[in-house]
């Protein structure tokens, strides 16, 4: 398993990342966790629909997204808010989506991030088509798809991996193996020694990385993206991480896992180790910590306010966003709904 930063913040190898970049990644992870905690509490207050927390997976998501170019494609899932945000998708839209508003799915122009996939596994093949199209168009854009360990059991994982390899598309498959698919442990999801080795069967490289090590994830994903960008084809990355929270706010993990395990993983927290590293290198101070936390809180609160200030959706919008132009039967129904 590739890693650069140990859980205690000591460095295993020379970091291919500057101290300033590390500070940026750390601040981003702090902001992502602020968002995650905010969403959990908003859901408890009844202000959000079901929420899928990513706590514990910040390094995998921020590290991967930090490796992207601004207009690369991203096809991710409901647990990938941090990844989507770091790839340019604003918090306010992510929150709007979770309040139950389709307008939250509308990425800003120039941000090529699809709305998160809610069904499991169907979206990986989209990143194959996206990358394939860019290859045919002759651009150097690539596509990153993120999914969990559970998604690798879906038939669409096989079809996506196979198509990507056969057509040599510029697609990077990022599996965040967080240990559980709702309640099913990774050991019962597949008896394969790892998820990364599944890449062998498709004829593409597969690598395992410490998913709680932001520097390692960034390094591995950057390399995979550059390979794809330069015509070297797809690859699979398995980021080993852990879902600290429940599957969603509707889940109770005490029914299927030992909470001691979550405690052990908290010792391998992706933020703590970077903070320790920065402290040791003189790149961290309490004052700076407070500053980035305050900035994160301010930005997340602003995003919440913006999302909640969206005017209620009209009945008409439900009809007008189905097709380029509403069909005649839809126009008639729009009239009925407006009555």
């Amino acid at each position, binding site marked *: 398993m590739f890693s650069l930063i140990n859980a205690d913040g000591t460095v295993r190898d020379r970091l291919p990342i500057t101290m300033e970049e590390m500070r940026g990644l750390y601040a981003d992870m702090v902001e992502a966790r602020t968002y995650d905690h905010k969403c959990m509490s908003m859901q408890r207050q009844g202000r959000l629909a079901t929420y899928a927390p990513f706590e514990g997976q910040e390094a995998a998501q921020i590290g991967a997204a930090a490796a992207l170019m601004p207009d690369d494609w991203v096809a991710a899932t409901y647990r990938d808010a941090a990844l989507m945000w770091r790839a340019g998708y604003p918090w306010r839209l992510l929150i709007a989506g979770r309040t139950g508003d389709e307008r939250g*799915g509308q990425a800003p122009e120039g941000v090529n991030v699809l709305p998160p996939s809610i069904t499991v596994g169907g979206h990986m*093949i989209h990143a194959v*088509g996206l990358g394939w199209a860019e290859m045919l168009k002759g651009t150097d854009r690539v*596509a990153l798809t993120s999914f969990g360990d559970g998604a690798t059991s879906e038939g669409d994982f096989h*079809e996506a991996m196979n*198509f990507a390899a056969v057509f040599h598309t510029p697609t990077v498959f990022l599996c965040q193996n967080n240990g559980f698919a709702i309640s099913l442990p990774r050991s019962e999801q597949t008896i394969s020694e790892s998820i990364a080795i599944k890449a062998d069967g498709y004829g593409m490289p597969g690598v395992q990385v410490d998913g709680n090590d932001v520097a390692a994830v960034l390094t591995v994903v950057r390399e995979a993206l550059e390979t794809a960008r330069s015509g070297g084809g797809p690859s699979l990355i398995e980021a080993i991480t852990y879902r600290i929270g429940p599957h969603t706010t509707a889940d109770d993990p005490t029914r299927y896992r030992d909470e001691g395990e979550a405690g052990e993983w908290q010792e391998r927290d992706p933020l703590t180790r970077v903070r320790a590293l920065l402290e040791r290198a003189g790149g961290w101070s309490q004052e700076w910590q407070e500053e980035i936390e305050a900035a994160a809180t301010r930005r997340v609160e602003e995003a919440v306010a913006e999302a909640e200030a969206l005017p209620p959706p009209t009945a008409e919008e439900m009809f007008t966003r189905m097709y380029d132009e509403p069909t005649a*039967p839809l126009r008639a129904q729009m009239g009925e709904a407006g009555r």
Partner: protein
Amino acid sequence: MSEVNLAQALNGALDTALEADDRVILLGEDIGRTGGVFRITDGLRDKHGEDRVVDTPVAESGIVGAAFGMAIAGLRPVAEIQFLGFSYPAYDQIISHVARIRNRSNHRFTAPLVIRVPFGGGIGAAEHHSESTESIYAHIPGLKVVVPSTPSDARGLLLAAIEDPDPVLFLEPIRLYRAVREEVPDLYFTAEIGPVRVEREGNDVTLISWGAMIKETRAAASALEETGRSVEVLDVRTLSPLDHDGIVASARKTGRVVVVHEAPRHAGLGAEIAAVIQEHALYSLLAPVKRVAGWDTVFPLKRSEGHYLPSVDRIVAAAEETLEA
């Protein structure tokens, strides 16, 4: 202008589309080297190259899912699934992704792709090769479902489907591929997705059908005309969105309607058409709307096809019952 059958018209339309628009790319199983199981893409790989007419691995969900990604990224993919009975592995891609992306991204991302699928029975094919399950697709919001029954419509509707900014499931009646011929302009032209085609005008009874069943419906209309009846025939070229106005106008005119389809009767589109008619033309009706459809059985193998497929006699008998009511 040249006289072509329906299969040749489709081949010509795909050739024209590949020629006219670089964004068009064809993908499917065996469509390149062999020209497809029905030879609809015959010769196109040699002419347009293997990057634009792509033989894919055997994976329907992969074909549609990859085409979907391509469409979002600005291409105009035309995917082929070999038979409607093989399309179900791709059903999740269609219902969960293809038909929803405009809605779930509030117009930011769209999927202008075409999924071409041969459908219907009557050629004595193997199991799963004769299905008419169009209603399970017409039920999906966000998807258009188009069915040509003439060579001219095959060309015009396919070019329209490729131009359409939204996803189109394009169903091709297998039994008619080589059974109908007509003069079709070689020009680039489109037929409008939506309106029914009035196949023949009449005043006493309306027969409504689509796809391969147009053939039996047409023969039934001729038989009825021989007995002095004036018969209107509608070809529902678009199953979704359904042309309520065109259907209702004809029902109001004749007051008697028979819907003919090959798909099982239960929850088939005949039910939707009958419902639309009773909602908008009940007081013009002189008889209950009748359905002549496939039975609610699995589509049978070769030796029983005759027991299953609506026949000219069944259509004539239903129309006569309606006329006598």
